[in-house]
């Protein structure tokens, strides 16, 4: 589980990884993949990176396609729709967000546990899943207390709090998932049928505000993580083995024939000799 603290409207966003912060994005030793999720209810925004607008009219509950960005450091600013860096202060701001080469990350604009807008970068686990399995990650990005995440009635992740995540690999399939307040049966979200596709990472975000009554789920999926099965069985009775050498019946026939030939030869040759 990764824990990331982020503070709204300050320049103190934690780095994605413990890499030293660089001041410019110029160091492009490679690219990173970054998606952005908007999880602040009721606020259409424009998103700026390093002073340039990258996402105009970004609506709550939407997720961007994965963006390929040069690795580096980014200053992110989120403005209420219509505001610009010249006309207003940002609604949310995060400076010095480190985006390492090769990383796959999702930056989430959401409410913290107390209901203040914030930005949290999450690193997405894109390691391979075992054959037949799917990865489920749940991220608490809602203004709500700690929760338990249940699948088919059983607690899968317990006491998940904002802004943390929990993750695990489970057999692929459809699960009935719900979210309850930690240690209770009080369902705050769901139940919802969740199709966890094999070889795919499904990331579920709880967002919104419990107080405002607008808690909701958002889903991101990352596919192509599958592995091949360990093998193919194919038989168990041994009724049709393929021998690698000369088959037994051919050996037997050959041996019998040779013996018979020798016997016949003994019968024939001496009789001729007698004449």
């Amino acid at each position, binding site marked *: 589980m990764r824990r990331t603290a982020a503070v709204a409207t300050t320049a103190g966003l934690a780095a994605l990884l413990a890499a030293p912060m660089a001041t410019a994005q110029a160091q492009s030793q490679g690219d990173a*993949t970054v998606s952005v*999720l908007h999880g602040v209810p009721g606020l259409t925004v424009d998103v700026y990176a390093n002073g340039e*607008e990258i*996402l*105009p*009219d970004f609506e709550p509950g*939407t*997720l*961007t*396609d*994965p963006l390929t960005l040069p690795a580096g450091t980014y200053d992110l600013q989120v403005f209420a729709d219509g505001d610009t860096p010249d006309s207003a202060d940002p609604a949310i701001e995060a400076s010095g967000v480190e985006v390492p080469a090769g990383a796959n990350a999702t930056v989430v604009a959401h409410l913290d546990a107390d209901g203040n807008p914030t930005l949290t970068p999450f690193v*997405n686990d894109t390691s*391979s899943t*075992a*054959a*037949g399995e799917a990865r489920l990650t749940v991220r608490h990005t809602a203004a709500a207390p700690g929760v338990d995440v249940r699948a088919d009635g059983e607690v899968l992740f317990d006491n998940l709090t904002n802004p943390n995540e929990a993750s695990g690999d489970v057999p692929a399939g459809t699960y009935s998932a719900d979210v309850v307040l930690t240690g209770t049966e009080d369902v705050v979200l769901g139940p919802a049928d969740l*199709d966890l596709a*094999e*070889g795919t990472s499904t990331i579920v975000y709880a967002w919104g505000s419990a107080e405002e009554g607008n808690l909701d*789920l*958002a*889903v991101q*999926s990352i*596919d*192509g993580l*599958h592995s*091949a*099965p360990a*093998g*193919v*069985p*194919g*038989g*168990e*009775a*041994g*009724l*049709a*083995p*393929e*021998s*690698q*050498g*000369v*088959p037994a019946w*051919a*050996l*037997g*026939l*050959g041996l*019998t*024939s*040779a*013996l018979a*030939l020798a*016997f*016949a*030869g003994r*019968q024939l040759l001496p*009789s001729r000799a007698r004449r």
Partner: protein
Amino acid sequence: MRTTKAARVIAVVALVGLVISLTAAWSRLDPPSPVPEREAGPPAVSTNVQAPRDLPPVAKPPWPSETRQSPSTGSPPVVGRDDAGLGAFAAQAPARPVRIRMASTRIDARVRPVGVASDGQMQLPPNPRVMGWYRYGPAPASGEGGSVVIAGHLDSNRFGLGPLVRLRDIELGESVQVAMSDGTMSTYTVERVQRFDRRGLPATLFSRTGPERLRIVTCGGAFDAEAGGYQQNLVVTAVPSGR
């Protein structure tokens, strides 16, 4: 005189027997089939299997993108975005193979979707007359390429020997037909017949990218009960015909 005649008959019969046994031995030692065979050995990927490496691609959300918007004004780059709600995230049920037919070897088997067994191997229907399609991989003619894997048991303790014993006799260039649940039919042409050590099946067999291939898999080789049964996998690779 009588013994001489009997001895001649025995000699002739014995000669015929010798010829037959030698012929059998010769054909077994030097298979007439032109297929590249690969005997038990290290699990190195056969050079014949040319599916590209299966790299985890960058995520592409599978849900529809009707909520995609373009920027209202100015120069900002267009970044695709989608509704991340649960409703936009529904399972799909594409057509699946239901029957496979290889007329030349008189194999005509029902096909069921299968997954992974608890031991991590591909799951197979217990009855050797029914074959399994690896449902996590591509389906025939899905348009996404990759390996369609259909496999079956050669035999079973309960059901006896199945039709796949005749898969050994399949020849290059022969036709394979796969009937789909939506009534369509996909036809393939046998391109390659390979044998792999049972523990050395290349992962590329299950590749989900690259050109479309049909891989028909069963067991082969010697049977060694101590070492877990059949020692090889027989893999027939077929390419889409006329597509």
